């Protein structure tokens, strides 16, 4: 018995020798959707140490952007956070517009707000639903997914695509709001409200659910700031920082909405904050609809053929428009040399785009500030000392999206 024991061994209660168990979760594991790898050291079920490895979904988004024109980068932004693609489109296009120093028509701005909030609703529904699914509550998940399908139907009506929307354009939108959209939107939102009530009833007050979420994955206010965490995670810790209020862009300064704030920064607060943000987004959408009705017939695009080329119907019949279209597609728009950083409040937090232009038709450098990546950093801090099962709700609430985190 005098033999020295291995370093990893610890003396347990009653003289029992226990070993630390090393567990590789991921990159392919049901809990690590979006491919991330946790190396967890377990003492029984308690997490002693945790190492989070990201980068399994790296596609070189930023480098890819440099090889095409400014327009050609827009579809890539869809693939960042595929749950709320329009918000990523919006961030990128706004950054380019800042370099171009242009402003788009009012109707376009309102349409962008509407599309962005629809996208956010879809993202939040996915996050809340998936959190339930991973706790083996499949029924609320499917209520959430039904609501998301309705939102995606609306998105499809707007831009023809459900997931990777490719909707926002530099200087406008892919197309104007279709006829009858407002009515359909109101109808769908009514059903979404019903589903959210069902969802709320089955989940939010459920004792098992609350026990799993409350007090787990806590990240204090100070830590949030230290890690520069943004989005619902930060707001759940009690800091009312939302770019839509802090630095209003688009039409957000004319819209009436609230920012929900939590107190403790645990998973339950995060869940409630996301749920309330969902309601606020629906409130914003409802404020956009009357404006869109009023401005019917007005353009959403900027009327400058050097930036937003004319539509196909005019291109086929006229000489000048044909040339403008040709030049716009082959050479791309010429963006004045300079640099710009624009951040929008995406579903996960501050989604920023930093673009450097050398005056040519292609971006010199595109850099994306992904909220997922920043928010994933304090993951081990949230979880060490907790139980293995706490990884699930915490990771769901952090909502790391591989495409956005690894770019």
């Amino acid at each position, binding site marked *: 018995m005098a033999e020295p024991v291995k370093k990893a061994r610890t003396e347990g209660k009653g003289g029992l020798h226990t070993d630390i*168990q090393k567990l590789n979760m991921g990159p392919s594991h049901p809990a690590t959707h979006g491919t991330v790898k946790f190396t967890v050291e377990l003492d029984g079920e308690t997490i002693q140490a945790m190492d989070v490895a990201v980068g399994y979904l790296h596609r070189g988004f930023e480098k890819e952007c440099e090889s095409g024109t400014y327009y050609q980068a827009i579809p890539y932004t869809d693939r960042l956070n595929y749950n709320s693609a329009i918000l990523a489109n919006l961030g990128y296009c706004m950054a380019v517009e800042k370099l171009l120093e242009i402003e788009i028509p009012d109707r376009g701005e309102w349409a962008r707000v509407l599309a962005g909030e629809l996208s956010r609703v879809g993202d939040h529904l996915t996050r809340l639903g998936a959190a339930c699914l*991973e*706790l083996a509550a499949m029924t609320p998940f499917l209520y959430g997914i039904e609501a998301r399908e309705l939102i995606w139907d609306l998105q499809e009506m707007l831009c023809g695509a459900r997931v990777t929307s490719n909707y926002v354009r530099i200087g406008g939108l892919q197309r104007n709001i279709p006829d009858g959209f407002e009515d359909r939107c109101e109808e769908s939102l009514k059903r979404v409200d019903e589903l959210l009530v069902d969802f709320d009833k*089955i989940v939010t007050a459920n004792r*098992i659910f609350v026990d799993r979420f409350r007090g787990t994955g806590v990240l204090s206010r100070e830590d949030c700031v230290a890690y520069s965490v943004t989005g619902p995670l930060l707001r759940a810790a009690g800091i009312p920082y939302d770019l839509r209020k802090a630095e209003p862009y688009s039409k957000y300064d004319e819209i009436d909405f609230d920012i929900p704030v939590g107190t403790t920064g645990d998973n339950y607060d995060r869940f409630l904050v996301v749920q309330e943000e969902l309601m606020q987004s629906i409130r914003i959408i409802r404020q956009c609809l009357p404006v869109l009705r009023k401005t019917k017939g007005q353009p959403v695009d900027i009327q400058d053929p050097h930036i937003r080329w004319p539509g196909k119907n005019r291109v086929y019949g006229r000489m000048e428009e044909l040339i403008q279209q040709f030049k716009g597609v082959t050479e791309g728009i010429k963006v004045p040399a300079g640099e710009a950083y624009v951040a929008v409040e995406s579903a996960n937090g501050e989604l920023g785009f930093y673009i450097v232009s050398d005056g040519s038709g292609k971006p010199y450098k595109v850099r994306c500030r992904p909220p997922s990546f920043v928010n994933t950093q304090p993951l081990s801090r949230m979880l060490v000392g907790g139980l293995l099962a706490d990884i699930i709700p915490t990771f769901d609430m952090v909502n790391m999206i591989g495409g956005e985190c690894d770019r």
Partner: protein
Amino acid sequence: MEFDLSKIPITLFIFSLIVGLFSPIMTWVERKQSALMQDRIGANRAEILGIRAIGLLHPVADVIKMITKEDTFPLGGSKFLHNIAPMIAAIPALISFAVIPYGGHYQAWGADWTLVVADLDYGVLYLLAIGSIAAYGSIIAGWAANNNWGLLGSIRVSAQMISYEVCMGISVVGLFMVFGTLKMTDMGIAQQETFRVLGFVEHLGWAQAGTAWVDFVKLPMWGIFLQPLGFFMFMTALIAENKRPPFDVPEGESELVAGYFIEYSGMKFGLFFMAEWIEVVVIAGLMTAMFLGGWSVPYIPDATLVEFFRGGVGVNMANVFAMIIHVLIFFTKVISMIFFLQLIRWSLPRFRYDQVMDLGWKILLPLSIANVAVTGLIMLLVKEVTG
């Protein structure tokens, strides 16, 4: 227990009906009921010669898939233990139905039929004992897999099963005290009687003996009315033993991938699933036999039912009619119970491992012990008052 050849065919027929038919149909129930709850259509694609039969052919497709799949074996695992674990898990589930009576005692054409395969004096104890053996299957499965997830799963299984066996046993002690028996058929017979809910009013002298409204309010002496707390605690413990949501921590697919049966494929994996589904039927049957009056029609004792048919069709056929009605009643109760269990399974999220332990040791165990004490006290009081 007497062994009589004459009763074998009919009991075995119904027995194999339960075990052979119910468990595949359970997969269909699971799919369709969850679909109903979740606004979906549910499985309806499997077809033979163009017949889809609202998805009822899916169990057939499942079985064919399971049997023809490759049987993989984990590197570095124990082959012997790996092979016997699914059997240890499945066999107790199959044989535990043997003591659950699905009908009473009938006499026709000189033959005696008691609709239970093994009418044991210690029926409930047999079930508790067999139930604990099933835990070994899961524990061995995880241990033999040489896999971290399997190991964690089997540790969780052993802790959970042992914890819940304790309160499972104690929570039904109250029922034993009320009925004074461990024999399942006797319990069924005892539950055919009725009791006056407001009887205490007379004994306290608030109403005269024989008052009409006191006599009118009668309930059958079902376990659920005599032991309401026992019913819910026993059911909770049984669901926990069954390892289905919300108690599926040992296999929690989002944490442990598949837990203790992670390295199983093909029909070995199928055996674990089959065992789980048969256990659901066993739980439903057990709850019916012990708490929901078994095979009996509420307010109508067996003898009255036989007497009712006797005038028209003669004593032999009267017994057969009564038997058919009783078996149908039993299955109706079992099916309702299964629906209820599925409702729980598809509504609740999963517990965390430590919360399962807390529920078992800190809430269910003290409650079940208190239930025994309170039951004893009430029985004593009733005896004092009624003499």
